[in-house]
């Protein structure tokens, strides 16, 4: 139990996926790797949860998906952000900022 917890903070996986895809379309593994790299290994995404989340986000209309060739000429399912997805990202980001700011204020409060 000494290993640091690398689980994605509950409820933030959708936001992380949307944010990652806002830069460019990506396939599942690409998203996982990007999250891990940018968070410098703090978060490791569970593949099962990730693929299920992608399914859900696509159903909700925030993502589009299409099968494409990758650079090493393999087929992969690429996800890209839709317009409603972008709006959703804005909403979730604003919400997250508001809440972390509140947490920060609480933690910083003296005596």
């Amino acid at each position, binding site marked *: 139990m000494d290993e640091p917890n690398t689980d994605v903070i509950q409820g933030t996986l959708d936001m992380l996926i949307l944010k990652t895809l806002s830069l460019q379309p990506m396939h599942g593994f690409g998203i996982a790797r990007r999250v891990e790299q940018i968070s410098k290994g703090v978060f490791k995404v569970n593949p099962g949860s990730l*693929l299920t989340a992608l399914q859900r986000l696509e159903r909700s209309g925030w993502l589009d998906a299409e099968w494409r060739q990758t650079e090493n000429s393999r087929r992969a*399912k690429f996800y890209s952000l839709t317009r409603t997805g972008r709006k959703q990202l804005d909403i979730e980001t604003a919400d997250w900022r508001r809440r972390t700011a509140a947490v920060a204020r609480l933690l910083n409060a003296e005596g």
Partner: protein
Amino acid sequence: MSLWRQLARGLRALGNRAATDHEVADEVDDYVEHARAAYIARGFSPHDAMRAARLDIGNVTAAREQVRSYGWENAIETLFGDLRFAARRLRTNPGFSIVAVITLALGIGATTAIFSAVNPILFAPLPYPHADRIAAISDFGADDTPIDVTFGTYRELAARSRSFDAMSVFKPWQPTLTGGSEPDRLNGQRVSADFFRTLGVAPLVGRDFQAADDRPQGPNVVILSDALWQKRFGGDRTIVGKSITLDDDSYVVAGIMPSHFENVPAPNAELWAPLQYNTSFTPDSREWGHHLRMIGRVRAGVTIEDAARELGQISRARVPEFQRVPWASLDRGLIVSSLQHNVTRVVRPALLAVLGAVVLLLAIACVNVTNLLLARAAHRHGEFAMRAALGADRSRLIRQLLTESLLLAVIGGALGMLVAEVGVRVVVGLSPPGLPRVNAIHVDVIVFAFGLVVTTVIGVVIGVIPAVHASREDLRFGLQRASVRTAGGHGTTRSTLVVAEVALALILLVSAGLLLRSIERLFAVPTGFDTAHLLTMQVQEAGRQFSRDSARVRFFDDALEAVTRVPGVEAAAFTALLPLSGETDTYGVHFEADREAKDEGAALRYAVTPDYFATMRIPLLRGRLLDRHDVAGMPRVVVLNESYAKRRFPKGDALGQRLHFGPDDGQWYTVVGIVGDVRQSSLSLGDEDAIYLTPSQWHWVDQLMSLVVRARGDAIALTPAIRQAIWSVDKNQPIVRVATMDELLARSQANRHFALVLFEAFGVVALLLAAVGIYGVLSGSVSERTREIGVRAALGASSGEILGLVLRQGLTLTAFGVAVGLGGALLATRALVVLLFSTSRLDPLTYLGVIALLGGVALVASSVPAWRASRVDPAIALRAD
């Protein structure tokens, strides 16, 4: 848009499951492949990279399943999976499934059928606007039963009461319609002008009756029912305003009622004409006869109770403008109730009892199916344990069991609807003649919903019990237990249910037994005459030719003469009132001996031809019978029945007494004879006061007489010859209601009989279900205890001892059930008291008989598993598994 997307994707996934699965699998594989490539890029060996990638994603199948299981369509898929599985389970155990489905179908079907029949009669509002405002008003008869009102009473109430929007009186009318191929005797009503307005309905075509129609010598107008209009006039609207011929008189068709109009007060009526009574009349006129039924529509905001209070005040406070006669003095007030209550008064106890019985039956059916499911769940410990071990969670198991029981309930419910369809027809077929609103009885939407709700509730209830039972067990322990048959699992729940089942069955059987005893006792009651070989029919004279009384009298005389000559006829007579036919015709009586009494009471009026007593075999006790010389113009004489004479003249000096009967026209009747008592309305009612006289010595001439014929052999076979004999006198006279006296006798007990037949049917089903329950629990228990029994046998228990062991178990359950059921029966039979006849609801013979019957059936049901237990071979039992 998102919803649309959800739906479209879901449907696509459902429609092409294979492709969707493939896509998910591909994506997961891709992921693994990318991860492996990434690990290689970080310097892992190909083998280690694969391992690491696999480790990341965990169980590939689980990951696929996780991704796959997203989306609403998967819930549906699981449901279908569950259903398929449940259907397979039910198929592998056909004995269980068939018994369960049949039990449910009978329970639900019978409940739905009875509810269908009872609902429109007792509970649904009558088919009129604001039906709760329609009241029925009756006068008090002897022993406080309601009797019809007189026109005089109606006239006074209509003028003085302020609680009603409209009031109406009416009486039966049976005109003969000519002009078609043959004369047709119709059932109709003579009604006062406001009849349809009181009910709140109006003719579809034409006009309603007006006050101007309802006066003496008013116009001959008639309103037709939709059925008669369609049948006789082909639905031709131009008939309105034209004339039709009724009883040789011409009537103008004023209107036609809509097809949905249901005439609750007289369901058979096909046409209506105005009553046309005099509004000023003397005490000896028909306007003071108790022969009109009365209804009223209370004003908005006034309750029927308010109206009853007002009518009560009017009854007590006489006013000079409205004189009353002693037999309609209203001294005891009036009986006011809702029309619905009034028309269902007679059948209500029987219907409520049957409704109660069917609820008991449904309860037994539910208990039985629950027991079957429990017994089966007990055999499936192993299966559940195995599935839990393979990863099925508890809720999944509960859902599976719920699906199974719901499937059973739905199949049972569907079959139950079939049973209900048939059952409703049977109930209508069995229904007593007085049952109101029979035409409104059918399996309707409300009842279907009722059946469906019952089905679903049963499904959930019987589903939850085994599911809770199964999931409460420690599944791992269950896995072991499945292979080690020890003396565990006493099945307390199941035993309790069997006890309940036996108890419920006992209540039903006791009720059925009490009804059976009542019917037996009723038919043992002497009718006062010999019912065998007696044929009865109604003969009516219709038409202008009979406008003179002498012609009427001659027709009946000639007809009787002709009938007597028919070979096979021993004796024949006419009577104005036929015993056990359901008719009553009473008139006020005033004996010369007691001058003081105001309200003299009334007696049944039998205007009979002299041979009536011989034909019916009513014994003469004292004095003389009526004879041929007692005709108009001769001294008026009457014959009394025995109990009437005894009550009025306890000293035995009835002969020679003088009395007024009906209107007082100044002349006395003299009592010349006393005959035996006869049951007029029903076997269960007490002796009724009766006065016999000859038709020609009565105040008026009867148009409608009943012919009674004593046959030498088979009575009904004489019918054609007798008809021909009457028609040889006049071929235009309708003859109706041909029946043997034995049929009338059976019909007079139709309400009890109706209840009895249904109770017997339910009782038999309950007995069978209880037997199945006992058998099921014992055979389950025997197969669970095989090992224990084997040990006992190995240790020297004889097969007789083992037989006794199991039998004792069965009989103990039955004994508990009987004890509980006795308590229930003591309570439940209270509701039955009205239907019983000289049978106590605690009748010991019935209780003992039912207990013996249940005990016997329990013994038979226990003996099969007991016998199987006694044959257990210890060597095999101990080595089993």
